[in-house]
């Protein structure tokens, strides 16, 4: 990508949904997904970011990764606002099953039920899951 961008904005804007279902560490899926989101944001796409199943742990406050020798990338979620990625959702059932609430998370999210999530999914043009 060139560093210049078109002042008029992108020609095509699609509704993209990124569904995070895996714990943040142990595999590289969560970090790679976040990179994909940042790239989509750089192209000014309509990004929806979902956290469900163990994916909700990606947003958990107070992560300490020293013992596993991986970078704690949870602060990067707080940068998303600056990238105008502001549609973040966490699935209610996944939070409840893990004893978490929106207050346990590093960024504000909209907590939605499984049913609401499936309705939101139906409106997307592209869905990527990891």
């Amino acid at each position, binding site marked *: *990508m060139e560093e210049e961008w078109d002042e008029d904005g992108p020609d095509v804007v699609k509704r993209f949904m990124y569904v995070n279902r895996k714990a943040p560490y142990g595999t590289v899926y969560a970090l790679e997904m976040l990179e994909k989101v*940042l790239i989509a*944001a750089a192209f000014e796409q309509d990004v929806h970011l979902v956290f469900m199943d163990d994916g909700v742990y990606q947003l958990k406050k107070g992560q300490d990764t020293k013992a596993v020798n991986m970078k704690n990338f949870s602060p990067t979620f707080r940068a998303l606002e600056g990238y105008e990625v502001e549609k973040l959702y966490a699935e209610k059932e996944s939070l409840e099953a893990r004893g978490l609430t929106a207050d346990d998370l590093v960024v504000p999210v909209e907590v939605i039920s499984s049913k609401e999530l499936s309705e939101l999914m139906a409106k997307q043009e592209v869905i990527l899951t990891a």
Partner: protein
Amino acid sequence: MAYEINGESIEHDEEGYLSDINQWTPELAGLLAKDEGIEMTDEHWEVINFLREYYEEYQIAPAIRVLVKALKKKFGPEKGSNKYLYELFPYGPAKQACKIGGLPKPTGCI
């Protein structure tokens, strides 16, 4: 591949970004800037320091659009512009400033 400074070698990748960002020093920044053909001024340092603070807080190097917006917020519209940044870093502010500041290449910058 490595930069040599004060008898130490600092490893870098094929594009010149540091392998270990913790090895960065202001002195190394001077050497990196020279390689890029840039004479460091207070204005250059202001951007470099801002980028390093951004990285410290968010653990990523910002995309150029995000950098411009954040600079505008902190320093006002004159410094928060593409034009101003390109005057300081003609070969791409995000790329050159991140390299001089010892940060990784911004995500989404191919």
